[in-house]
């Protein structure tokens, strides 16, 4: 698989604050890659450098074989191949959804059909509504429609489902997978660990301007081999036991109880547990 984004030794400071302190990343064609990290970890700065919105202080960056710091006509051809969905915007309130999407289609060499894009994001019945009449979730779907209208090879999604209800989030995830299946590469930043787990092929955790780990959601932080926690009620007390062999342990419990074990549960650490552990350990 070819590499779509390649970053090495990326540096960016604001005054004395080293927002990005040597980030290395490789993002491959056709994957959904999630970048996770607390506020102020350097996530937004990194992504905005990749999007060409900010200049870097050091390191090398290649996005679709192009340095995003370049300006001029070459940059325009590059922007023709990427789609950016920013965090909340409130623009174009006086245009209908279809007018906005149709107009943006005019910026690109190879745009998708505006009505098909509205179908894809589930806004067809709002095509003739003014932007300012949309709900938060509809507004976000319009943002996505504007981000993908140019048939991008690479899509940046910044906190795409903030403010969505659970049903809308599921529908949205389906849309993102569909875009990936059509061949697009997606770089996602999100605060929702369940979103990263559901969508991402690989995740990177960033903190204090450095990448701590890059892995699949299932393997991040040794999650696949982490101890499981078994809990049950015995003698009126809730008991817990950490174990690397939960099946064996439960079989033993089962033998002891001669049947049902009261309030039995066994769980592996969630992605969120692992993430918080990683971020927490970095704070020391």
């Amino acid at each position: 698989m070819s590499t779509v984004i390649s970053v090495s030794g990326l540096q960016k400071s604001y005054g004395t604050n080293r927002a990005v302190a040597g980030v290395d990343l490789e993002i491959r064609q056709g994957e959904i890659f999630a970048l996770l990290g607390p506020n102020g970890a350097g996530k937004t700065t990194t992504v905005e450098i990749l999007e060409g919105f900010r200049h870097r202080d050091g390191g090398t960056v290649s996005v679709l074989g192009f340095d995003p710091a370049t300006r001029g006509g070459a940059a325009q051809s590059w922007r023709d191949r990427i789609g950016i969905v920013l965090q909340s915007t409130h623009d174009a309130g006086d245009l209908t959804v279809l007018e906005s999407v149709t107009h943006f289609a005019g910026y690109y060499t190879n745009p998708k059909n505006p009505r098909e894009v509205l179908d894809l994001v589930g806004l067809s019945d709002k095509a003739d509504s003014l932007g300012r009449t949309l709900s938060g979730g509809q507004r976000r779907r319009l943002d996505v429609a504007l981000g993908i209208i140019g048939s991008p090879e690479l899509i940046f999604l910044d906190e795409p489902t903030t403010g969505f209800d659970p049903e809308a989030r599921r529908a949205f995830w389906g849309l993102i997978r569909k875009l990936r299946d059509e061949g697009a590469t997606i770089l996602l930043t999100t605060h929702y660990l369940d979103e990263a787990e559901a969508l991402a092929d690989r995740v990177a955790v960033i903190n204090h301007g450095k990448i701590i780990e890059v892995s699949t959601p299932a393997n991040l932080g040794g999650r696949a081999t982490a101890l499981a926690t078994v809990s049950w009620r015995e003698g009126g007390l809730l008991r817990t036991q950490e174990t690397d062999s939960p099946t064996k342990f439960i079989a033993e419990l089962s033998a002891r109880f001669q049947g049902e074990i009261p309030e039995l549960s066994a769980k592996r650490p969630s992605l969120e547990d692992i993430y918080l552990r990683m971020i927490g350990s970095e704070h020391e």
Partner: protein
Amino acid sequence: MSKPTALSIGIQRGGLEIKQFMRQRESVVFTMLFPLILLAIFGSVFSDSIAEGVTFSQYFVAGMVASGLVNTGFQQLAIMIPVERDFGTLKRLRGTPMPASSYFIGKAILVTVSMLIQVILLLAAGVAFFGVDLPASANKWFTLFALVVLGSACSTILGIAFSNVPKSGRGASAVVSPVVIILQFFSGVFFIFTSLPAWMQQVAAIFPLKWMTQGMRSVFLPDSFAAREVAGNWETTRTFAIIGAWLIVGLIWAMRSFKWERS
């Protein structure tokens, strides 16, 4: 499919800007009717003639068209663009292949079209209610048209450049409006220019509004009035040269300082 050009995108943006503008009813009413209201007030207050066959309304119409250029271009854009910056409109555009020049062209189209409509309304009302005489020759009509187009372009680009000065959309009006009002007083929009103190005249001569107003006087007043100008004639060439020079200054200023994001 072929790659869209900066000009073709700019023209599309112009159409979109006009559509959005027309849907904001308050701003349409303000922009289009405000000059008419001013003309009505001044025309009623100063009902005397300033010379044989020339009413104050006739003098004032020149000032109103010229200051319309500043209001519709400079003032409107220097207030509107910081709001677009706050709303993320500009950042979103920055992330697309749209060239910056297309955005500027779109704004210039918006300003020029609303200016042409404004002039038509102003002249129609002036002729119908205030005894304003239309330009007397084809030559003067041409000067009027050329001044509106060049003046709109100049005012647009200076508005875009100045849009970096207000810190936010909320405070923009407070920063921009005083600049415009002072400039209007200094430039002889509300008064007869040559009756202003000499130092005011000299300050005004640096800025384009004075020249736009003088150019409009050459369009609306009889040629006998040329003798009353500071230089004793209309200085048409100098007028166009100075407005053109400001257009170039504005272009360089805007290109260098334009910000797509609120910093």
